[in-house]
């Protein structure tokens, strides 16, 4: 992971956006160093997509200062557009064209010289494992292939800053892992800056150098994955007991976070590492307690949200 802080590739100060009475973003500040991956983490309706749309010049903010790749988003939208690549939440490929034609279309729109455009298209097809499907219309592609083509199209013209709005939502686990590899390689090989939005902590954890948690239009936390997890408290361990007596005794004997008398379970704070597990097991042994089942929970998005906002990470999409 990169920790050296270069000049910011993207900065935003006090960005606000409301649709009528509904405030979508209320004062967002971001600072993303060049050559790093930044994740905007939050549930549906938190304002992630709106933030991306504003930064990519699709919509205007009501207030706020933003610079992307050294250009003012409001005053120099065309300079910003020339420096960025965007992969939106919904597939942005031309279904009637083949994969190759889609890439050539992008090359033409970037005004690449004639020889370069062919080279660029065939390089990207190879890199995204689309050579076999290059001459098929994109409507015939699977979800994972479409997403790969989508990202390949975003890379035509070598953008310096790349926006990925929920790049793996709806993908199967294998395609998801392929996508992660591709994104990670972009940063290490080409030094681009990536802003991605996601609903999944594991995705942010895997990809991002820094993570910002967006909740109801506000940033409620910012930091590295480790820092965030520390705030959450590092997970917990659930123990299930065979009878109420053991359950009750253990509840007094151990440092319990919460208890469930019906399920006969206890939750104790702790990491899933071997040392703290062994210590816990030793204590249980010394007290001659029988445990039916033991489960280790690493912190997930729900824990982060619970810890940061007091609300579970359910959909916050307002009814329309």
């Amino acid at each position: 992971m990169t920790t050296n802080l270069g000049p910011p590739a993207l900065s935003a100060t006090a960005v606000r956006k409301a649709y009528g009475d509904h405030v979508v973003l209320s004062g967002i500040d971001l600072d993303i160093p060049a050559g790093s991956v930044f994740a905007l983490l939050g549930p549906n309706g938190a304002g992630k997509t709106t933030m991306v749309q504003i930064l990519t010049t699709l919509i205007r903010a009501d207030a706020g200062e933003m610079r992307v790749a050294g250009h003012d988003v409001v005053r120099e939208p065309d300079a910003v557009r020339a420096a960025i690549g965007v992969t939106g939440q919904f597939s942005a490929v031309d279904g009637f064209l083949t994969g190759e034609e889609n890439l050539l279309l992008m090359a033409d729109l970037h005004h690449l010289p004639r020889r370069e455009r062919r080279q660029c298209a065939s390089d990207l097809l190879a890199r995204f494992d689309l050579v076999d499907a290059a001459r098929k219309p994109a409507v015939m592609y699977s979800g994972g292939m479409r997403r790969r083509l989508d990202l390949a199209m975003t890379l035509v013209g070598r953008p310096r800053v790349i926006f990925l709005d929920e790049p793996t939502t709806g993908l199967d686990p294998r395609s998801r892992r392929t996508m992660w590899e591709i994104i990670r390689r972009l940063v290490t090989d080409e030094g681009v800056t990536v802003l991605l939005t996601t609903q999944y902590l594991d995705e942010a954890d895997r990809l991002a150098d820094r993570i910002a948690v967006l909740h109801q239009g506000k940033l409620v936390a910012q930091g590295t994955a480790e820092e965030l997890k520390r705030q959450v408290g590092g997970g917990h361990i659930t123990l299930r007991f065979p009878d109420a007596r053991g359950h009750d005794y253990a509840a007094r004997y151990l440092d319990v976070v919460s208890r469930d008398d019906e399920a006969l379970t206890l939750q104790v704070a702790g990491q899933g590492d071997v040392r703290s597990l062994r210590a816990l097991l030793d204590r249980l042994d010394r007290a001659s307690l029988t445990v039916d089942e033991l489960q280790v929970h690493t912190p997930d998005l729900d824990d982060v949200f619970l810890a940061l906002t007091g609300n579970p990470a359910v959909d916050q999409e307002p009814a329309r």
Partner: protein
Amino acid sequence: MSTATHAFTDSATMLRRQLRHMLRYPTLTLTAAGVPVIFLLLFVHVLGGILGSGIGGPSGGRDTYVNYVVPGVILMTAATAAQGTAISVAIDMTEGIVARFRTMAIARVAVLTGHVLGSLAQTLLSMAIVTGVALLMGFEPTAGFGEWLGVIGVLVLIIFALTWLSVALALMAKSVAAASNMLTPLMILPMMGSGFVPTDSMPAGLKWFADYQPFTPFIETLRGLLMGTPIGDNAMLAVGWCALISLGGYLWARKLYNREPTR
């Protein structure tokens, strides 16, 4: 490169995209020609005997009527093709590809000019098919080379105008189905003008509408060039209407395209 050359090359790129769609899915072109061909067959073979005699002329009957009705049917093709344009613009707007174009440093209007120029080519092709069928059915134009050039010129102006209008309507529509429906009245207009029967035979109110709506000067100009009937001031009126509709449609479409996408 300057903004103007960008606008030109980007429009050319978008035109190539449309032409590719057209070549890959020729059904779009054939559908645009299909409805007018059916009307041609119905009106000439089913109704043409009576209608032709009603119009009069040297021989009366079907032979007269096919020569009378072809200009109206050709313009009906402009209307059915405009409907196709509206559908393809509306489909584009519902797909993410337009959002991608908006985040790229390309001339904004290029997406729309690509659609308009692509439709122009497609509509001319559909009209050629319709005219071909008409010739097989006994259509005998008197036009010489110069008149045929005039025919193409007038048709290009008319298609250009109707296409910009349909692009604007498609951008206003909330869905693909709505975009398609909005263009349906355009197909009726050639009938409520001098396309299928002379306006003199219509009741007073309808005749007034028929005489003043744009399709009547369109049809009369086209008929004059093809069949040598008097054109009078219809040519001026047709060009005027085309300029007005083109400009209005273009400005309206540009305004709608540049507004912020609501989620």
